[in-house]
């Protein structure tokens, strides 16, 4: 672990930005966050995909899913609350129409998957197992387990283990459970992921939240509650990544409110191996690209030859 500070490197030096997420080598540690980059192609005119570490696409389920009514998002101070409700075209249409497009790029594609039952999770994972062009599966556990009432896969440790183990059985692809922030012990979920065969974990998903219009006394979202994302959650996310990193050896993809290079660096300093940019992409589609460039600069200033030196380099 690097504790002392170093003299800066000269401006021509190209730091090594590559990182490993389990068996997956990424050219740099910056990816898009699921649900904020569509299926990639929506941003093709504006973002150079080849510059990104990986593209994480919007959550996919076995069957098409129509999601929630509108309004689906509401802007709050330094944040966004969304209740899209996981609308997606289903696995077959995704493979036919969207994955086919993404295969033209060399950037690894990580597919975010979800289900309403353990069996559905396993079925989606199995379907992707033999799909070329899928570098890894990220498991979104922030959905209700319909077999067990309102229990969330993401907040009930037993349900979480079951889902991760079932997906592990269903696929040899690298598997990345995505942790929910609203648990009392994030370390327990990180360890459970490791014990159940995960290759990495990602966190955090959005933070449960709501807004009411005082004038009309109505909720501002059709779904009443939603998930808060953006800069407002960054300090919460940072603390959870720090805790998770102390509980597991698995590589961590850190996210929550990253809009600047320094934010990405902060997540890596507390133990993340890679980062994802979500909500910031809406205002500035090129945020992730800009952070990749910014990281090289940042590393030179820190006197680091590789971004891997940054991981877990928090000084006391």
């Amino acid at each position, binding site marked *: 672990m690097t504790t002392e500070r170093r003299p800066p490197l000269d401006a021509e030096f190209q730091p090594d930005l590559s990182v490993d997420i389990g068996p997956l080598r990424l050219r740099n540690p910056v990816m898009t966050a699921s649900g*904020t*980059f569509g299926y990639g192609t929506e941003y093709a005119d*504006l973002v150079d995909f080849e510059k990104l570490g990986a593209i994480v696409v919007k959550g996919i389920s076995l069957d098409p899913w129509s*999601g929630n009514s509108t309004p689906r998002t509401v802007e709050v101070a330094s944040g966004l609350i*969304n209740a*899209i409700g996981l609308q997606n075209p289903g696995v077959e249409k995704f493979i036919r129409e969207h994955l086919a497009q993404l295969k033209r790029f060399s950037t690894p594609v990580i597919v975010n998957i979800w289900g309403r039952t353990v069996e559905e999770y396993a079925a989606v994972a199995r379907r992707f197992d033999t799909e070329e062009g899928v570098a890894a599966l990220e498991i979104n556990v922030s959905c209700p387990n319909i077999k067990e009432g309102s229990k969330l896969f993401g907040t009930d440790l037993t349900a979480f283990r079951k889902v991760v183990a079932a997906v592990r059985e269903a696929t040899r692809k690298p598997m990345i459970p995505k942790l929910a922030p609203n648990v009392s012990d994030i370390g327990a979920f990180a360890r459970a992921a490791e014990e159940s065969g995960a290759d990495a974990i990602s966190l955090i998903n959005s933070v449960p939240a709501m807004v009411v219009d005082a004038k009309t006394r109505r909720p501002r979202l059709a779904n009443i509650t939603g998930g808060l994302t953006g800069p407002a959650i960054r300090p919460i996310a940072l603390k959870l990544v720090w805790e998770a990193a102390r509980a597991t050896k698995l590589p961590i993809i850190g996210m929550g409110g990253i809009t600047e290079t320094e934010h990405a660096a902060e997540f890596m300093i507390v133990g993340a191996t890679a980062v994802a940019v979500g909500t910031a992409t809406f*205002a500035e589609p090129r945020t992730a690209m800009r952070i990749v460039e910014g990281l090289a600069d940042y590393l030179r200033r820190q006197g680091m030859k590789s971004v891997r030196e940054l991981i877990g380099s928090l000084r006391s």
Partner: protein
Amino acid sequence: MQTQPPSITIEDAEVLRQEPWQGGYHLLVLRAPFIAPRVQPGQFVHTRLTAPADAILRRPFSVFKADGDTLQILYKPVGRGTSAMCALRPGDSLSLIGPLGRGFPLPRPDAVPVIVAGGYGMAALYLLAKTCPRPGLAFFGGATVEDILCVSDFEVLGWEVRVATEDGSRGVHGLVTAPLDAFLANPSRPSTIELFACGPNGMLRAIAERAHHYSLPAWVSMDRNMGCGLGACLTCVQKVRGPNGHAVWARVCKEGPVFDAQTILWEDEA
């Protein structure tokens, strides 16, 4: 057939002018050399304001006029974002993503174009009026005379403008549908007309009903809260009748904002 949107870019537009307009509206004139020449009638730009500092999303605006490398936006400061927009001065820059969305189809050469607009919809339909192969008839509605924008702009193009205000301060006393209904029911009106509408949802729905009743083609431009503006976040969705008659979500920012009025499923139908 609706036209395919041209390619999209992010551009730092330079503010050339900012003027107060009537009815609390403001006119913003921008130099945007990439976007301005590519804007099609009915398309929008997604603007990034630098203030307030905690703003998370861009704000979409329909384009009023586009001429060479400049474009004009007519807006009313209603929220925090649009209020911050009033502070822009000549020389400031404003990040735009555009041109976005699918605009109006090319007007049919054999039909008389009829525009129906409420509020800023009058501005949003100006470019369409300008590209129509022949001048047509425009119906403008608003609460008071202050809300009736850009009549002279349409008249310069040779259009006839009929106005209705809810307080009777200009034109017919009532909703815009009053003079429109009178026109549609008149047996001596041209038989081939095509309707284009932009304004509040209730007005658009009324237009869709008229179009259905008289079997007229009608296009409506929908207004929705937006996130990405690019089709990625699924904030802006609207229920429409899909190709096989089933209700499906359409993204207002991508498949819209302009829709065939008969495909829209209004709130209680969805």
